[in-house]
Each structure stands twice: as structure tokens, then as C-alpha cells.
């Protein structure tokens, strides 16, 4: 008979480390997807996920069982990703003159006919990633959670541990930062 999450967690806390494996198997896909939003290289993604699971194991006693395990784990994952972003704040002042050819083509198609530039194109995905990489860590986290993952301010506050007014202030600043970067692309390429 399959054991419930609560039973698995209780077994881990009693010293049976093997009971943690079903939890790792079940939730790793979600943790990997979250980490891939913030890290580009696969080795970095694996490091983040490994750190999340080690923290989850070490802090398992602090899981009270009032909310689902998945929520608790995703909070850990988002905070670990945020720490990763803060540690890797490099190359944020890169210019957009070195866009790849497909990215330039996509931009030109967008300028000529906005509806003609496909949102599902790989070039568009690359361009978004490039723009997000220019943002400071809090702005990138907020834009990802609020605009891309479409989460509410309340959810973001719970995930990040920030207060709701702080989330709103950071969201306002993040949007302004993003508009500044987009304006820079427009200036670099078309003025």
C-alpha cells in the first residue's frame, strides 16, 4: 500500500532517510522547472535543485504539516533561486548590439508587423531570457512570478517571505526597470 506524504515525512523524522526518496521523485520535476526559470546552464540548475532538497531534508522538522508539503517545498525552491540570482549578478550591463541573428530577425519582424512575430518562436524565448537576465535579482523574481507565472501578490508574499506592500513596491520598480531595458533595446537597434 502506498504511504501518504505525512507518513513518509514522519518516517524520515524517525530516522528512515529512505522514506524521503518518494518525495524527491514526486516533486523534482516541479523544482527543476522552477530552477530552469532562473538559471541558464544545466549544471547550475542541478546545483540549485540539489540545494533545495538538502535544505528540505535538513529543515524537515520545521514543516508543521498545516499546508501541503508541496507549498512548503516551493517556498524553499523560490528562496533558493532568489539566493542564486543574488549570487550571480554579473554582466547586467551588457548591450543589445550582440543579439543573435534569429533574435534580430524576430525583432525586425516585430517592428515591421507586431502581429507577425510569433510568441512561440525560439528567438522570442531567447530574447525574453536576455531581457530578464538584465534585471536585478528582486525585479527578475517579481516579473517571473507576477507576469510570467501569473501569481497573485498574496501568493508571491508567501513564496518569498516579503510583505504584501513590499511585493507591490518591488513589482512597480521591476516593471519600470523592464521598460527601461526594452527602451534600451529599441534605442540600440533602431535609433
Amino acid at each position: 500500500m502506498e504511504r501518504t506524504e505525512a507518513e513518509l515525512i514522519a518516517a524520515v523524522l524517525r530516522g528512515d532517510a529512505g522514506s524521503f526518496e518518494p518525495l524527491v521523485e514526486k516533486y523534482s520535476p516541479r523544482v527543476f522547472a522552477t530552477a530552469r526559470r532562473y538559471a541558464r546552464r544545466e549544471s547550475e540548475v542541478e546545483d540549485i535543485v540539489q540545494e533545495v532538497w538538502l535544505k528540505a531534508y535538513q529543515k524537515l522538522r520545521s514543516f508543521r504539516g498545516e499546508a501541503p508539503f508541496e507549498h512548503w517545498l516551493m517556498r524553499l525552491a523560490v528562496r533558493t533561486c532568489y539566493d542564486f540570482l543574488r549570487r550571480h549578478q554579473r554582466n547586467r550591463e551588457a548591450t543589445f548590439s550582440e543579439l543573435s541573428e534569429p533574435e534580430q530577425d524576430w525583432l525586425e519582424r516585430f517592428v515591421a508587423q507586431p502581429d507577425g512575430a510569433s510568441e512561440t518562436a525560439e528567438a522570442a524565448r531567447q530574447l525574453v531570457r536576455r531581457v530578464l537576465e538584465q534585471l536585478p535579482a528582486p525585479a527578475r523574481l517579481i516579473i517571473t512570478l507576477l507576469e510570467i507565472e501569473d501569481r497573485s501578490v498574496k501568493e508571491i508574499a508567501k513564496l518569498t517571505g516579503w510583505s504584501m506592500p513590499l511585493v507591490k513596491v518591488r513589482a512597480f520598480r521591476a516593471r519600470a526597470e523592464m521598460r527601461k531595458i526594452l527602451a534600451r533595446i529599441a534605442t540600440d537597434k533602431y535609433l
Partner: protein
Amino acid sequence: MNLAEFERKLIAAARANPPSERVPYSFEKRIMAHLRAHPLPDECSQWAGALWRASVPCVAIMLLLSAWAFLGPPGAATGADLAQEFDNTVMAAVDQDSTADSAW
């Protein structure tokens, strides 16, 4: 260039391309090997560890204070004077009371 439309388009592109949920082969085995190497600490050993770490600065402070007491400036009070002064301070209220009583 219409920046608002550009922003909307990029956000839509990001939403249309969710990251992969692919997990590397036998990743969970690797995690479990790590976890077995670092067993979950129980509360007693956590406390013991914290107290053991705290003992180092305590010993350092004790040694510093001892050194200061023995190698302090020559004008400083000696051990006997210090004991006398401590005694006077503690007994000050009692002495004051007895002085007041004798005045009556």
C-alpha cells in the same frame, strides 16, 4: 517601436514557453546518496552542537578577562581591595540603615 506591445509580446513568449520539467537520469539516487552522507540531526545533537560552538567564544572571553585582571594597570585595585570594595558596595544599604538607627 511600440514598447507596451513589445513588453506584452515578450511576456506572452515567456508564458508560451514554460521550462522543461525533465529530471536527469537517477537524480533522486544522487540526492539520496548525499542525504545518507549527512543524516538528519536530532534536536539534542543540534543543541549540543550549538553549545559546543558557543563554548569557544566563552573560553576566549574568560581568558581575556583573566589576562586583564592579572596584567591590568598597576594602579588598579588588588584582589583583596576588590573584595573589600565589593563587600562595601553590597553592604552599603545595611551600613546606612545602622548609621541612621544610631543617630536616633
